[in-house]
């Protein structure tokens, strides 16, 4: 759905881009969020433009998550990763 050409953005594209901007602004002071946001948006960029239902679903989900992120009680984001160890 992301744009590689000079064609004008559709309304939905503009909404997605403005959501991306709001996410990045809200995450500026809280460590750990920005890589996650970028990965999420970039991973979902491969969705076809015609798949409007999926895009709108992700958009609404993103709006809810943005509210959580803007909440004062959200401080930082971390992940666990499983280390590969031989044996038990």
């Amino acid at each position: 759905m992301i744009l590689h050409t000079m064609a004008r953005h559709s309304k939905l594209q503009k909404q997605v881009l403005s959501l991306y901007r709001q996410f990045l602004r809200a995450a500026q002071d809280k460590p750990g969020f920005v890589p996650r946001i970028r990965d999420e948006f970039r991973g979902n960029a491969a969705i076809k433009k015609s798949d409007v239902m999926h895009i709108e679903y992700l958009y609404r989900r993103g709006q809810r998550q943005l509210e959580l992120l803007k909440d004062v009680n959200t401080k930082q984001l971390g992940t666990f990763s499983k280390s590969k160890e031989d044996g038990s």
Partner: protein
Amino acid sequence: MASRALASCVRSVARAAARLNHGSAPLVSRQRPLSVLSCSQRTRWTQPVRISGPSVLQRRHYGDLPPLTLGSIEDRVMYVLKLYDKINPEKLQTVSHFMKDLGLDSLDQVEIIMAMEDEFGFEIPDAEAEKLMTPAEIVQFIADKKDVHE
């Protein structure tokens, strides 16, 4: 009354300028005087006060950033773009298009515009931001917003 207050301001400025010009030739002889205030006979001071133009103007103490020029805006824009990890610094030119020449997409363009907003300290609305596709356009937009002429 007003002329007396004005003359006292001018005298303190000239005194400050004279203080800053220490070591060099006296104020009056070196620079071309911009104006000569001769006080009226009702005031206490009998000497005319000379203001020297260039040195006084250079030493104004406003609480503001140095004025922007087209060259400085372009330098800062290119510097910020070179720091962006998705752009190859060798291929970057003032006229290189973000999407066609540098292979970026619209998400990257949003990030670039946000970096410009942080660098120059003012908000760029979405409607105008999505049209800025080359560094030259960004420089032109900022120059328009900040009233920079050259």
